[in-house]
């Protein structure tokens, strides 16, 4: 068979595909939202928060991998709430009119915002991990105990734990975006706060009412399972299911935000 008869293998123009992806309206909005967050100086707040997290919880006490992921999970979740609130408030004022006047769907703007708030979770986690790793060596080999290492930490369980932690943080940041003004109505925000109050009450109080309200904690079960991924070091079917539900939460909350946003009258100042 001559060379001319050989039909060229179908090639994917990866460079072009990446370029197109880079210029999608949602990705463009995410890039700009992140750039605005950095230039406005709010990123310093994130850096300081992560450094404080490290200084308070990891500087003197390395703990084991469960401690690392448990503490980092709670701290970075709090950071996810704070930075998503700031980013969304800065993105949803009168300045939104100009980008919205260019795109054919408000959904692109919401997706960009969700993407920006989610992507920012990655460097925050990596910074915390780098700070912890810079002081505490990971084990094995020999971990001499508390204060000198993060016991039980291996590349595998750090990777698996990171996936679970980041999935949870992105769910939280997406939840914040979805229930921010002007996307959600006041009634929806009150509903969310009522749910959070019920969850906290059922967790902290004994008695029949708390027992009944414990049903409100069911939606949090996948998040709890994802937090445990780092400690367990394996994903397993339950971990995979929890991750899948986390991803479903992110997609579902984004779609809900898009639906609400599409119906809202935007009168912003």
């Amino acid at each position: 068979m001559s060379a001319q008869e050989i039909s060229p293998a179908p090639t994917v123009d990866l460079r072009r595909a990446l370029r197109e992806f880079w210029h999608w309206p949602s990705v463009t909005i995410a890039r700009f939202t992140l750039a605005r967050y950095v230039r406005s100086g709010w990123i310093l707040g994130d850096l300081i928060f992560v450094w404080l997290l490290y200084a308070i919880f990891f500087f003197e006490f390395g703990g084991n991998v469960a401690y690392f992921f448990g503490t980092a999970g709670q701290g970075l979740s709090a950071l996810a709430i704070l930075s998503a609130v700031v980013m969304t408030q800065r993105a949803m004022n009168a300045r939104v009119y100009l980008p919205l006047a260019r795109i054919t769907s408000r959904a692109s703007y919401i997706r960009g915002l969700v993407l920006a708030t989610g992507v920012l979770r990655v460097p925050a986690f990596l910074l915390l991990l780098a700070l912890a790793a810079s002081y505490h060596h990971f084990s094995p080999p020999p971990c001499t105990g508390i204060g000198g290492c993060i016991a039980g930490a291996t590349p595998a369980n750090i990777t698996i734990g990171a996936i679970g932690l980041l999935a949870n943080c992105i769910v939280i940041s997406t939840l914040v975006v979805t229930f921010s003004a002007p996307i959600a109505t006041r009634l929806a925000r009150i509903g969310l706060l009522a749910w959070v109050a019920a969850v906290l009450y059922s967790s902290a109080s004994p008695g029949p009412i708390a027992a009944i309200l414990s049903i409100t904690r069911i939606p949090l079960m996948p998040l709890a399972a994802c937090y445990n991924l780092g400690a367990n070091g394996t994903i397993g079917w339950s971990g995979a299911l929890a991750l899948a539900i986390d991803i479903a939460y992110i997609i579902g909350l984004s779609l809900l935000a898009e639906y609400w946003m599409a119906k809202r009258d935007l009168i912003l100042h």
Partner: protein
Amino acid sequence: MTTPVIECVEVSKAYGKRITALKNLSLTVAEGTSFGLLGENGAGKSTLVRLIMGFIFPTAGRVRVLGEEHVARAHPRIGYVHERPIFETRFKGREYLHYLGQLSGLWGAANRQRAQEVLELVGLQEAADRTVGTYSKGMLQRLAIAQALLTDPALLILDEPTSGLDPRSQWEVRQIIAGLRRQGKSLLLCSHYLAEVEALCDAVAILRQGELLLSGTVADLLHAQDVVEIVLAQDYSASEVAARLQFGEQVMETQGNVLRIPGPAQQRILAALVEARIAITSLNPLSQTLEDAYVQITGNDGTVTKAGETGTEINGVSGKGELL
């Protein structure tokens, strides 16, 4: 017949149960028209602009822009200037244009080239690499116009583009708008400055308390509000002549031997004077500005004088919102 770029059919907009911003408004803007939107604060201009841009939705009625009922689908063909500068102050003017250009589907070299073109068009090329926070109000407004022109839009919506600017900056912005008008762009200009609308627009609509008071071409509107001054011979008293010939309400004002009458009544009154053999010294059409016409239409005391309600037919100007 030209295609309408904006069609509002019996549009109403209420905010909650108490505030009705627009009431049953119907308006059509033809392609290639420079259309002015006038009205006092709270008249409903900004609400109408937001409806046309799809930022808010009508409570009743239908809005169609560039043939699209789902207005956002027309966004790539619309250039929009917000009523006040709303830019990211920490970005350079050029960077911000690149961002908005990318959202409009312009990439790489094409995006950079188009940004440079519009910066040159509005005279901002030298300040393009400064952060927007250092711009003066006039520069911000020129940047606002530059971003609106990025995609060479079929329709430009300018919401109070000269508001708050110094006279020089106002003049500069008006020059840019006049240039766009000469290019045959369809413009919707929302403004408080009547002289500006008179100079830049072919047609106007006047809103009052959420209702369309009147719309029509600027020429017809001015003509409809024309006043003619008839100077009778010295020995005539204008008021006596008016009473004798029963001109009644057709006469706006009398002073000595001078009669002031509305333009449309000119032919009828002149015929009556000639028939009565009353000598006329001179006939002077008094030129009207849009401001004069606006005050007459809306009333000096704030009362509304509707063309249809007074029984006066005004050529080419309709009180029901149709652009004739």
